[in-house]
């Protein structure tokens, strides 16, 4: 569902038209479930968080004046609901990801460098490998330290803007950008390892002689 349609549903509900209620609930329930499932990896918790979030949203629906704000508004509630049930993950200790550690490995003598990287030009169409990549991605997201995970979930997975993400997480926009880049780099590494193990390795070589 695109953002515009989502806003239209909210606009109608705000105006008292109950017809889109089911569609609105199903759509946001799935989005919030995905968001919280990737945060807590517990199915029951994710379902509870989706219900709790929608309930809080509807309880204060008369406070929502701008339908354009529906997505960030819902995800602010979802983020708080996740925080309340947060379980400290032993897989995701809070730490900084440095750019240095995320730089790809290079081989060579400085004059002729080679980067070991999978061939990303054509991502596989095979449904099985697509599914496996999705699982690698979900695990990699879960392993990210909280502050990076929260940014990538909102920015890339729920497609909120930098400004909306900054507002929800109560951090500056530059911080959103920095954390997003590092989170993407960390996920990229895991996905690349998976693709390379599937035999799509491609040594990208510098053209300099």
């Amino acid at each position, binding site marked *: 569902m695109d953002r515009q349609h989502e806003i239209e549903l909210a606009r109608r*509900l*705000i105006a*008292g038209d*109950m017809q889109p209620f089911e569609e609105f*609930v*199903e759509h946001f*329930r*799935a989005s919030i*479930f*995905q968001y919280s*499932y990737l945060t807590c990896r517990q*199915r029951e918790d994710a*379902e509870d968080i*989706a*219900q709790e979030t929608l*309930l809080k949203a*509807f*309880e*204060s*629906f*008369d406070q*929502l*004046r701008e339908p354009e704000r529906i997505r960030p508004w819902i995800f602010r509630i979802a983020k708080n609901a996740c925080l309340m049930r947060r379980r400290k993950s032993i897989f995701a200790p809070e730490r900084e990801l440095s*750019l240095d550690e995320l*730089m*790809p490995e*290079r081989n*060579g003598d400085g004059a*002729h*460098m*080679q*980067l070991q*990287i*999978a061939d*990303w*030009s054509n*991502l596989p169409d095979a449904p099985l490998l697509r*599914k496996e990549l*999705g*699982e690698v*991605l*979900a695990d990699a997201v879960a392993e990210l330290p909280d502050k990076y995970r929260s940014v*990538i979930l909102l920015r*890339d*997975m729920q*497609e909120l803007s*930098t400004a909306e993400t900054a507002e929800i997480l109560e951090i500056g926009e530059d911080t959103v*950008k920095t954390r997003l*880049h590092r989170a*993407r*780099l960390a996920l*990229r590494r895991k*996905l*690349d390892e998976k693709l390379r193990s599937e035999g799509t390795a*491609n040594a*990208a*070589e*510098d*053209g*300099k002689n």
Partner: protein
Amino acid sequence: MAQKADANCAEIFEMLSRYLDLDLPPQACRMLEEHLAGCSPCVAFVASLRGTVELCRHFKASEMPGPLRDDARRQLLDAYTKALAAKTARARSGGSGF
């Protein structure tokens, strides 16, 4: 990645997400594209980062929520109709609406 005279790979490495998000100032964008024109490892790396973002955007969890139970649906509908009633009451008493 290889060193280049104009800008080295490490320097552009930091800017790649902003490049993909079309958030770089024109001058930095030009510098980065000039670098990419002569550095195939960086081109391959950008493709991998772009692919990662695409996979995130199209990610569908293998787990989906079970069907919404009737009592849960009723709970949501009650909350919504109460909020609507509160808005109507405010409008009648001359307060601001939505």
